């Protein structure tokens, strides 16, 4: 998946990937996609939950060899 901005949260545990996502998303324009790299498995459930509450769109969370890539499209 193509992203406009990538945020590296490798090695960070809950809730830091979400907190960092919340900070980073403010820098994006609406419609842009943020890619969040993480190793904490909680992100599989946490990112969709965060998006549902904040109104941003979770485009999916991919998993490869214990690494997670979450994609968030900023709402307008």
């Amino acid at each position: 998946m193509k992203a406009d901005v990538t945020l590296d949260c490798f090695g960070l545990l809950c809730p830091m990937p979400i907190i960092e996502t919340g900070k980073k998303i403010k820098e994006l324009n609406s419609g842009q996609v943020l890619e969040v790299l993480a190793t904490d498995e909680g992100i599989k459930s946490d990112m969709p939950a965060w998006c549902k509450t904040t109104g941003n769109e979770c485009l999916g969370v991919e998993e490869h060899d214990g690494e997670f890539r979450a994609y968030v499209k900023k709402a307008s």
Partner: protein
Amino acid sequence: MEKEKFHIVVMSGDMDKVLAAFILATTSASMGMDVTMFFTFWGLNVLRKKKITSGKNILQKLMNFMNRGGADRLPLSKFNMLGMGPVMMKVLMKQSKVPGISEFIKTAKDLGVKFVACTTTFSFMGFEKDDFIEGVDSYAGAATFLAGARESKMSYFI
């Protein structure tokens, strides 16, 4: 649109419980909620500066000498072992890049979390405003918390 409100009472001064309170406070703030943390009793230790003691009379001074304040020196609710437990826990947390309470205080302030300190504990322990860190937004009592909690979708007591 008005933000959803979340009120948390932080009564505990134990590092583990305070950590849970801050994880929920910072995460809910990053989810767009309007978060207030109301610190009372042992919880006030989180907001106290590191001082040898404070208080106005001898009993308060003695109590506050034993009940040391400062976000970095909170005890654990279990396995405190005269302070060895928190030291080990801090090493474990650092190894996993989990922020300590001081860092969580900073993150919470950056995210606009409001800190309220309980005036009752404040008074009977003989504290002064100078005993507390800068991030305290206001000093208030039970009615302030309850009025806020009434309007909140969630309110927790930790």
